[in-house]
């Protein structure tokens, strides 16, 4: 049954790596912009008028 120890070590290591990555992500401000992506999908991208083919941004 030594394999269960190998499994435990492996899974705890993997879980640890992800925990570290997550904490690093939070600390480095990765999740700061958590508003604009969710709002952006609500805007339609239909052409604003049928006559203009390009516009200034």
């Amino acid at each position: 049954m030594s394999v269960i120890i190998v499994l435990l070590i492996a899974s705890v290591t993997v879980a640890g790596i992800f925990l570290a990555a997550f904490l690093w992500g939070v600390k480095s401000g990765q999740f700061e912009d958590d508003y604009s992506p969710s709002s952006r999908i609500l805007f339609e991208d239909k052409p604003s008028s049928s006559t203009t083919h390009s516009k200034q941004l």
Partner: protein
Amino acid sequence: MSMQVEKFYYDNKIVRAFGYATVIFAIVGMLAGLWVAIQFYAPAASLNLAPTTFGRLRPLHTNAIIFAFVGNCIFTGVYYSLQRLCKARMFSDKLSWIHFWGWQSIIAAAAITLLLGYTTGKEYAELEWPIDIAITIIWVVFGINLFGTILKRREKHLYVAIWFYIATWVTVAMLHIVNSLEIPVSFFKSYSWYAGVQDALVQWWYGHNAVAFFLTTPILGLMYYFLPKAANRPVYSYRLSIIHFWALIFIYIWAGPHHLLYTSLPDWAQSLGTVFSIMLIAPSWGGMLNGLFTLRGAWDKVREDPVLKFMVVAVTCYGMATFEGPMLSLKNINAISHFTDWTIAHVHIGGLGWNGFMAFAMMYYLVPRMWGTKLYSKKLATNHFWLGTIGIILYAVPLYWAGFTQSLMWKAFTPEGQLKFQFLETVTNIIPMYITRSVGGALYLTGALIMAFNLYKTIRQGKFVANEEAEAAPLLREAHPKREYWHRILERKPVMMLVLSLVLVAIGGVMELIPTFLVKSNIPTIASVKPYTPLELQGRDIYIREGCYTCHSQMIRPFRDEVARYGEYSKAGEFVYDHPFQWGSKRTGPDLAREGGKYPDSWHYNHMYDPRSMSPGSIMPQYVWLLDNKLDTSSTPAKIRAMKTLGVPYPEGYDKIANSDLMKQANTIADNLKKDKIDTPPDVEIVALIAYLQRIGRDIKAEPKTQTAMK
């Protein structure tokens, strides 16, 4: 900064095609479901025809719902939302249509072959090897189209829904390939590469993740697109969506063994499955709460809009099912629930509630928009909602009751220490619940028919927009972004994300599978366990063909009642020659793991002809055709050779003489039957099936005797 805005067109035609297929296969799949539900209390509804008997019709129902209905629903939603989220038309129209027609051909081939009895005998992976290959090809086509669109997108940020689509594509590809490894015997017959315990672990690793990555992650992706759009509010917490995505895909892959609690699977693997199943509550509820909280302050809209009504119940059902699932993964609860209708109730909360209602909501959302009109009747849609909701309750509650009741009856002992109930009594007791369940299913189906009518009328009053005009600025390569966060970089690199997701998922899979394959101590071999004789092998293939595993388990758990009812509990070493394993997952009929030698050959003959002649009140269908069908012995040599390749120790050159052994054994059984006044030729299918049934679980019975002899 100024830049040219590009004008382009979304492809709505492909969305329409997948949408039509969704509605058609919803109705087909539910009809098949209702039909098998009726067979539970009216066995004559099998029509005494092989293709319409439960064992073949049930896989048709599950495959139609999962891969035809939900599959087409996923593609409808992905093709609609992906284009809009990427601000780009699909990568290739040609690939879109190859995907569409390829998938529908696979469904047609699946329906025909399943009804004809071509099956691998592995739940939710029943399709035979040529169809498996076709699925792989079409899935790759879908993948190229998916990633191609992502690569040519005009929106830098990958919205959360797209991650779910990517995870779905990657994981399903891997699951499908690993579980479908099989050795072809003929064009429509193959044997699983794995045997017994190993096959069971691979199968449920696949089976559970089919639920996770076909019925959950893509639908969550649809939820993250369609729910905010329908409510016109941003998702409650974008941060939560990121966290629960990663947590979900990492944890899900480990949970498979919870389908095998108390079986012969090594204990550590069972515990691993339980632990990860419990952990799954967190990310699952993260998704549910994120969905429901999106509607905070917008509940007045829910009162008005049928689309939101469906979504609220769908997400709630998702929450209930993902709470119940971990609970069912606890060994003490699983000891009660497993093999009963409780499991069926559980999956239908997910299927009818989560998948079905999300699909309906999406269709009600899409059709008016793509046809530039309003829904024909809000009232009919609301009626559909209520019919469906009441249908779910009438479906699930009786089955919870049935499962719990039956399990307690199985486990009941008299004060004298005898089993209190015959198996059949535990079945006839719950028949009223089976009837109510089918009423619930019928209501749900009626709702779906109303939807089809409502959508048809909506389409008639609108005008289809085949190519929807849109405009957006092209994606510019930033020279050197000031500060980049790792997740942002990842989001803009789909290929890297694909690789990372694959690595994540593979770690889970490999860690669980490799040890079982490599550690010999996990599969103790038992000296008395021998390969099947050629006749038994042919009989076993008939057992698989007729889908006996859909109602009968072959796995006696180490419980007092099961040992008293069926015999010695099952050992891992007993299944080493079982390609595929046939442990089953439901006991509508009794376990058959120790069936061999329990009854005379003539009992089985009469029982297969008319089960009620041997067990009055039985709900088993008749298998009359087995009595007349000639046994196809031409396949014997190929089958023996295939088994030899898989490591089954038949003697060298045995394939050449296997059929003469087969006939010898068949003649013995025919002679046996003659003694009981049954006149049958030896070369019919029933004889082979009897040979197999009389063999199951017998080898180990010889064990104690040899041991005493050695002492």
